[in-house]
């Protein structure tokens, strides 16, 4: 399948393209880097990506939202700290915390995860990696919660490999919250093998109580297309384990018919 993510121009799918029932917004903040990758992943996962702009408080009737990776506002204050106050975030916070039967599914990847913690949609926070360096590598994760909108198509404790790349990736959280997270099974992804950054309990991703908001530091959107992903057992850059995140949400949104 052709991904067709233009290097130049808008990454919203053209109106002539066949639409699925799953319209997934991808937010661009100043300094966002992985918005095109996230849009491509949505498309490869069978959804329709819709470009959302930080300064626009409308979600344009999307069914789910992805906050992609990058360095929003340079991460100069704290990672994600300024983006959290963008107009689009006000709407996302309201929709994600709605007490309706199906609150808005939101996925924060890397900087997006940091924004979600700054917005208090997810607990904890991210500080500098314990080794103080930026690290880019293929990372093995264990999927420990398949009850979220974003992980429904994984099997429990499935091991996946996706790229990770960050400088502020060390997940910290107070003891009480950590126990709650563990007790309630809200650790969605955990690092396998040597810790890449010193995160508490090797946590790579967590979800909120309702399971609609998920954040993770590694990058599933960089593991969706053979030839451009992480290395896997079959060879160079063939890994596509991240795609299941995107097919999961499309499936959740379309009632399992995608």
């Amino acid at each position, binding site marked *: 399948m052709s991904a067709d993510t233009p290097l130049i121009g808008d990454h919203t799918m053209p109106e002539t393209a066949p639409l699925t029932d799953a319209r997934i917004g991808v937010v661009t903040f100043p300094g966002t880097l992985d918005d095109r990758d996230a849009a491509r992943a949505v498309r490869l996962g069978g959804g329709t990506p819709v470009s959302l702009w930080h300064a626009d408080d409308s979600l344009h009737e999307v069914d789910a939202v992805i906050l992609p990776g990058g360095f929003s506002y340079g991460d100069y204050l*704290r990672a994600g*700290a300024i983006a959290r106050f963008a107009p689009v975030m006000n709407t996302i916070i309201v929709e994600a915390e709605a007490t309706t039967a199906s609150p808005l599914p939101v996925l924060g990847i890397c900087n997006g995860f940091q924004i979600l*913690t700054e917005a208090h949609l997810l607990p904890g*926070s991210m*500080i*500098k*990696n314990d080794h*103080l360096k930026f690290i880019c590598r293929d990372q093995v994760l264990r999927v420990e919660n398949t009850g979220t909108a974003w992980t429904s198509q994984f099997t429990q404790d499935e091991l996946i490999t996706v790229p990770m790349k960050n400088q502020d990736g060390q997940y*910290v959280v*107070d003891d009480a919250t950590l126990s709650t997270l563990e007790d309630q099974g809200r650790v969605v992804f955990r690092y396998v093998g040597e810790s890449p950054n010193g995160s508490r309990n090797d946590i790579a991703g967590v979800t909120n109580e309702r399971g609609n908001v998920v954040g993770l530091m590694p990058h599933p959107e960089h593991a969706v297309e053979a030839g451009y992903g992480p290395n896997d057992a079959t060879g160079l850059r063939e890994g596509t384990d991240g795609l299941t995140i995107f097919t999961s949400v499309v499936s959740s949104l379309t009632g399992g018919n995608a």
Partner: protein
Amino acid sequence: MPTILVEVMPKPEILDPQGKAIANALPHRGFTGFSGVRQGKRFELSVDGEVTEELLESARTAAAEMLSNPVIEDVVSVTVAEDL
């Protein structure tokens, strides 16, 4: 021109990787006798004119809600400096 100084430190219970790295490096350069280092941030908010109590309160709110993240950081002081 007066300036409002806001100082933010990582919470004592939160690991401070930068402070730790500096603490490890000090003895290598012959600076011994320091048992720990923590690295924080200082913000300088410049003010044209007088610092009113209202403005100072606004600075305190900004410090608590934006300049720091209460999950990992404490605002340790908000003060006024006259001539920087």
